[in-house]
């Protein structure tokens, strides 16, 4: 199944998701609401997306954006699944029950961005020490030990 056929198929099955589906880089990009993330991910897995390559987050200033990279080994197509997460009380459903590979990636996102994943079995920091203050990849992170690079270098 090519990505265009997949788009037709998805639009037929989920008409409300159709305007949020776009094609870039030869892969599909599907943007969903944070509340519908788990449902959409579950449907995509049932369609044959059996591999979650990675997931990460982007700090957009007003909100965070979660990005999941899915891949189907049978259809040979890739898919980006995106959703916005509010900055205050950043929470989103965990996808570890669908793809076990989400476990460590979500711990990494929690460690560096501070997004909490509901339903994660072991949501602890993975890179930094347990008592680290703050989440370093947030744009408003400040650390008095950090030295800003001067302009002449």
């Amino acid at each position, binding site marked *: 199944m090519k990505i265009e056929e997949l788009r037709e198929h998805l639009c037929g099955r989920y008409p409300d998701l159709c305007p949020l589906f776009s094609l870039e880089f030869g892969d599909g990009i599907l943007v969903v609401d944070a509340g519908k993330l788990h449902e959409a991910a579950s449907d995509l897995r049932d369609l044959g997306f059996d591999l979650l390559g990675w997931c990460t987050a982007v*700090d957009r*200033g*007003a909100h965070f954006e979660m990005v999941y990279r899915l891949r189907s080994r049978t259809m040979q197509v890739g898919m980006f699944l995106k959703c916005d997460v509010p*900055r205050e009380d950043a929470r989103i459903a965990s996808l570890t029950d669908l793809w076990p590979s989400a476990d460590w990636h979500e711990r990494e996102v929690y460690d560096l961005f501070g997004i909490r994943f509901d339903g994660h079995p072991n949501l602890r920091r993975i*890179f*930094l*020490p347990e008592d680290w203050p703050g989440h*370093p990849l*947030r*744009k*408003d*992170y400040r*650390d008095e*030990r*950090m*030295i*800003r*690079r*001067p*302009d*002449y*270098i």
Partner: protein
Amino acid sequence: MALVDRLGKSLESAPLLLTSVDALVDWSLGHSLWAMPMGTACCAMELIAASFSKFDFDRHGTFPRPDPRHVDVMIIAGTVTRKMQPAVKRLYEQMPDPKFVVAMGNCAVSGGIFFYDSYSVVRGVDEFLPVDVYISGCPPRPESLQDGVLRLRELVRTRSIDPDKRYPKDLLLPKPSDRRRGEKAPGEGEGARGEKAPGEREGGDAA
């Protein structure tokens, strides 16, 4: 014969027997510096290369021994992060006295390319360990490492037997409070280069 000559030379300057035994101990220690390969990053590749047959660390009496209780010198090869720092410190504390530290590579010397804009890297292992020899390079060649250990041998040969004796060294790198290059002192007038105020870079990326 050369060994006997050197022994005699080190003995003739010291009339006391105790001093001579110290010299003998230091001489023997300096020629069998077993190394703890604390390879925390890519400099460990050069450390491994230095200990294998092409560069052959064994001919200097140094070979890697991955056990802190059997070694004399800890070679810290690579970046030390703040998470790794307590582990390195603990391994150092397990080493028997007398013990020495070689900081290999720019990251272990000063933080290297992670000196600026990094929240997780220790800026030089001399923040928490007494370093005896610094080896610059990114990474240093194996010859540099061997030269550093040979210099450590000279240091060991001439050291006091007092295990608490340390040689204080000043950190020559710029500190955050230092004035930057090209920046005028306050009251010296306007700068010609149009340099930015120190806090100006931080303004752009605030959320």
